[in-house]
């Protein structure tokens, strides 16, 4: 038997690289959630009114509800394909700590689902009459918030892997847990749009991100093991 020489960081890096490569080959997996985000955002003016003053008031809400729903949609693709072709099982059997490998997977997922939303958010905001001064805070908060959603969602996605009805169940599990992100993110964006300091909610959002990134991979690993046994 030959000695296994792949170190933990190498293994994590390989997982990250593999997921990014796969996503670039199946490009629609990245673009569909963004298109969904833009569509949800365009529903609000149609349902409410095209009045610019009203739209400006709800701009933060539209961006954040859209981002939340879109990242929920993207969570579907996090483990499903890997479970179907057996990759997830191989990761579990690889001898490396599963939590670190899942951390790499979730990081890749955040890069693929979060970053496009960070880029798309200013366009939605500007169509709602937000001013360019708020873009910095808006993009930072969306980046932090989608990070929390990816890591929190990875636990939910792992828990629903072995169950019969995935997507609606996933939303039922993740949405109540994601509320702090919605509250802090929308508040930060709102404060920035009114020209006030958004430091408070941004720090809180960062704290939630650090906590989630630290703890969620353990829960995801436990959940994946349960789903695969």
């Amino acid at each position, binding site marked *: 038997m030959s000695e296994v020489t792949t170190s933990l960081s190498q293994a994590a890096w390989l997982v990250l690289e593999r997921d990014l490569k796969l996503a670039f080959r199946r490009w629609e997996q990245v673009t569909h959630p963004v298109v969904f985000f833009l569509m949800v955002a365009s529903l609000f003016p149609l349902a409410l009114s095209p009045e610019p003053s009203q739209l400006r008031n709800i701009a933060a809400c539209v961006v954040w509800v859209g981002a939340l729903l879109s990242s929920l949609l993207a969570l579907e693709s996090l483990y499903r394909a890997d479970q179907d072709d057996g990759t997830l099982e191989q990761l579990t059997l690889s001898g490396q700590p599963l939590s670190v490998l899942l951390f790499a997977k979730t990081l890749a997922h955040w890069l693929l689902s979060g970053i496009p939303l960070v880029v798309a958010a200013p366009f939605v905001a500007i169509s709602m009459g937000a001013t360019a001064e708020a873009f910095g805070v808006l993009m930072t908060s969306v980046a932090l918030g989608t990070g929390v959603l990816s890591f929190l969602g990875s*636990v939910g996605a792992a*828990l*629903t892997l*072995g*169950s*019969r*009805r995935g997507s609606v*169940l996933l939303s*039922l*599990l993740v*949405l*109540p*847990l994601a*509320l*702090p992100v919605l*509250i*802090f993110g929308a*508040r930060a964006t709102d404060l920035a749009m009114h020209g006030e300091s958004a430091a408070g909610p941004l720090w*809180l959002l960062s704290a*939630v991100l650090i*906590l989630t990134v630290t*703890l*969620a991979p353990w*829960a995801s690993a*436990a*959940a994946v093991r*349960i*789903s695969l*046994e």
Partner: protein
Amino acid sequence: MATWTWFHKLSSPPHFYRIAGKMIPWYAIPAAILIVLGIYGGLFSAPADYQQGEAFRIIYVHAPAAWLSLMCYTTMAVAAAVGLIWRIKLAHALAAATAPIGASFALLCLATGSLWGRPMWGTWWEWDARLTSQLILFFLYLGYMALRSAYDDLTRADRASAVLAIVGVVNVPIIHFSVNWWNSLHQGSTVIRKGGPAMPPSMLIPLLMCFAGFTLLYAALACVRVRAEVLQRERNATWLKELGAG
């Protein structure tokens, strides 16, 4: 050592099934007496509130329901963690049995709060921090039960929902804090606060009776439901067949 043998004995389904069956009347009868006395004291003997008039009397159902909805969630998460760590099936059965009870109390709390809010705040629902927290707690229960029902295999349902309950209990303080920070309108706590309760004894004693009665009611309901869970899980076990035959 003695405590651990006791613990292991209790976690064996046949033993627990017997003990729980014996305990039900010991919980249910005091619960019924306390709730009847408490509700009577609250609805008839206690004076009307100087500010809220007769409407305050909803507290005799509302506050115990709110307390139990939280206690059930904690019980559920602790039982789930015990089941996950030590692989005790009975702990999973307790968690599974507690969830619907907790969800019912959360709903009762929301419903009574809404009924009280109509005359007091002039609205059925207010997007206030404590109401919203309670609503989210209710949603967390629903998510937990939905996850359980999505699995056909009981062992996997147990273990997956246990992870969810633990993740949920870590999140509850964050959710509570974020919602509080978002908005607060609900009146502060009346019973547990610095300088003693802000209530005369004639109001307080029935309330405490209701708290104790509702908690005992939970204990009785939990015994009944865990027994039902045990029956379902052990339906092929020999001890049950012997019990049925004897």
